[in-house]
């Protein structure tokens, strides 16, 4: 547990992604099986011990420390696992008896509701404060060390010098502690054979379109939907839904799991049907209600019904189609479509544009809430993992813009820790009050950042902890992909992907936009 505890400790305080990768890669190389597999599963929140819950830990603590002192401490620390780790008395600790991660996992998995407190107490007694923190986080979940499944796989790829897409593919087919994957990484065995198992295929991704146009004879156009990219896999009576990073999200979308029963792998966009759109796809804002949940209530299912707009077919009836050109896959997909439950799975249409100008006109005219732009897919290209030059392009709609007034600023992270680089800005209400409409921390050049940082420092009127309130004099031209109504902000609006497009030193603050004109852009 010592090495794992040290790793968590470093990850907690490390903000740089690259350093995180190096730390995890080091750990994976230097730790034996099965410890490293369980550790990586814990970091990516892939473990669950149903009999160990924070109420149980609190009750356990009450046997060792006064409840009032625990309550006061918990209030100060703000986290049950950390409070318990710090408060658990270590006087009885036997020095040479550090339990391994796999021993802890085995004991926690075998524990019953009745003996779980004893098992946890027994482990805590063998650990120091850092070890106790690692154990409790492993047992309770909520690691919060900023390690996504994708980052873990990249760390694995770096540790063993293998291709991350190859890792991605085997990762989801093999359960923790992933011993066959490590054996492959270390060259002791071949890549695990996935025939007959359900697994995630790494997504093919698109580059932004930078050229003025492409030849539509070579490229097919489809709408770019503003949902989340999903892959649905079915086989041997089981269905799994994977999100962009290969995370399994089946639990959050039971209606999709129930609706897909064909032996196939489909690629598409997960969307929510909105009443306001006449039963069509609703904005990303509506979809957000369904994201980040482990399970979902009946009410959520009824209010925000999910469906998938399918645009690719990666495998069907045991045949891998990824090597086929797009046009052939498309033909197969259209032939396959009648096998889909239309209530939850429909086909994303190809845009039948006469020429480039026609396509541009249609793109400009599309104000559908769930349309984000146009995808251009090379007709003769196979389905390949990641972003490859020349194959797929995304051509987003031109952003919307608004002139807003800077209201607050906050310092950034990492390299930007000494710069005020996160800005909250607002627009005018009809009563002449400035209401926050969004927050942005990108879009400007390094030179502009220096200027903005200086502006904040020289025009601060109040400080609230790390936040500075500034004189309401600077107009920022803000670009954003869309704007939605939101209860979270006083203005009643929330922007999607706002960024600072220009600093409008020339424009007086009172000429900035009104909240009411932003509301007209809302979808």
């Amino acid at each position, binding site marked *: 547990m010592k090495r794992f505890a040290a790793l968590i400790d470093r990850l*907690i305080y490390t903000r740089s992604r690259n350093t995180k990768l190096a730390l995890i890669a080091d750990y994976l190389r230097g730790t034996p099986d099965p410890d490293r597999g369980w550790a990586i599963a814990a970091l990516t929140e892939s473990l669950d011990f149903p009999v160990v819950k924070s109420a149980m830990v609190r009750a356990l603590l009450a046997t060792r*420390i006064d409840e009032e002192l625990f309550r006061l401490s918990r209030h100060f620390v*703000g986290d049950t696992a950390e409070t318990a780790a710090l408060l658990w008395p270590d006087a009885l600790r036997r020095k040479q008896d550090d339990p391994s991660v796999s021993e802890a996992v085995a004991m926690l998995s075998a524990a019953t509701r009745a003996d779980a407190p004893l098992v946890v107490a027994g482990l805590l007694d063998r650990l120091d404060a850092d070890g106790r923190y690692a154990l409790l986080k492993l047992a309770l979940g909520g690691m919060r060390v900023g390690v996504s499944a994708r980052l873990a796989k990249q760390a694995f790829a770096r540790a063993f010098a293998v291709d991350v897409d190859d890792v991605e593919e085997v990762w989801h087919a093999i359960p923790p502690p992933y011993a066959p994957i490590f054996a492959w990484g270390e060259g002791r065995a071949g890549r695990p054979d996935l025939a007959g198992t359900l697994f995630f295929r790494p997504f093919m991704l698109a580059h932004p379109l930078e050229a003025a146009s492409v030849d539509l004879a070579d490229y097919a156009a489809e709408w770019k939907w503003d949902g989340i990219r999903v892959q649905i896999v079915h086989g041997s009576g089981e269905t799994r839904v994977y999100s962009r990073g290969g995370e399994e999200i089946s639990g959050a979308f039971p209606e999709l799991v129930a609706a897909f029963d064909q032996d196939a792998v489909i690629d598409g966009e997960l969307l929510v049907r909105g009443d306001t759109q006449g039963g069509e796809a609703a904005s990303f804002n509506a979809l957000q209600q369904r994201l980040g949940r482990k399970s979902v209530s009946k009410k959520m299912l009824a209010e925000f019904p999910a469906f998938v707009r399918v645009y690719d077919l990666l495998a069907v009836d045991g045949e891998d189609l990824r090597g086929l050109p797009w046009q052939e896959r498309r033909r197969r997909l259209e032939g396959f479509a009648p096998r889909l439950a239309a209530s939850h799975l429909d086909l994303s249409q190809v845009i039948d544009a006469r020429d480039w100008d026609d396509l541009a006109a249609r793109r400009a005219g599309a104000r559908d809430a769930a349309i984000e732009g146009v995808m251009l897919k090379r007709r003769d290209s196979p389905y390949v993992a990641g972003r490859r030059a020349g194959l797929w392009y995304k051509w987003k709609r031109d952003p919307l813009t608004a002139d807003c007034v800077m209201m607050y600023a906050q310092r950034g992270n990492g390299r930007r820790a000494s710069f005020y680089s996160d800005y909250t800005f607002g627009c005018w209400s009809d009563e002449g009050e400035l209401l926050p409409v969004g927050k942005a921390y990108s879009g400007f050049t390094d030179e502009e950042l220096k200027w903005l940082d200086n502006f904040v420092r020289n025009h601060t009127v109040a400080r609230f902890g790390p936040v500075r309130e500034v004189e309401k004099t600077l107009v920022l031209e803000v670009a954003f992909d869309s704007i939605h109504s939101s209860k979270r902000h006083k203005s009643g609006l929330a922007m999607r992907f706002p960024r600072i497009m220009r600093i409008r030193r020339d424009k007086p603050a009172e000429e900035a936009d009104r909240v009411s004109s932003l509301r007209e852009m809302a979808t």
Partner: protein
Amino acid sequence: MSLRYGVDAEATHNAAFAYQDGFERGGVRFSFHPAGHVLGSAQIAMEYAGERIVVTGDYKRRPDPTCVPFEVVPCDIFITEATFGLPVFRHPPTADEVAKLIAAVRAEPQRCVLVGAYALGKAQRVIAELRAAGWDAPIYIHGALERMCALYAGHGVELGELRLVSETEKGAMRGQIVLAPPSALNDRWSRRLPDPVTAMASGWMRVRQRARQRMVELPLVISDHADWDELTTTIAEVDPKESWITHGSEEGLLRWCELNQRKARALHLVGRDLEEEA
């Protein structure tokens, strides 16, 4: 005092006393006793009609190469600080934390480690502890630490070679230790350093979320305040008739006194009671 508060503070009622020494005023005998907090820090004992009250001010019990250790002064009423008056605060051995700091500098020789440390006391203690651990390279300091370090050196505290960051080339600080007041850690000033690892020397660093909030990469639990064990042991050793608890987590220490059948109250409540009586 004049360094910390400016020359005006020195103007009138200013006198220097040695430890154990004191004076009498209005029948009350005042004396000063080491608090072990920083150089020159003192507890104040007040005696009147056979009864003694001791005010600890800020104090700690663990060894500090820059100041005289805390002295247990038996008394009737013990007014104690409670900065770390919760049992989550147990400072690890200082030598371990200093070793962590040195290991971090050596692990990334192309960077420097920037340690946030209060200008009075903490900075000089960190320097002295580094010297004791064998770190004999020059230590680079923020201008705000210069005068206080000179004062300590003038009182015979060995700090070794100190250099001002403002007079040093950026590249020369790679693989070195830099000290600055906490306010400078994430400020523009730090841009002149070579890719600093941000460290902070404070008892608060014991709690991960606190350290994260301050954007600290290397938390060092080094404190000039008594931790939970020191606070409770000290009350037991002084063994007063009554403890008055102030300045920090009064509730936690108060609860400990209650559990150990020791008479105690929070000083802010005492103040309120007096107002009601008045």
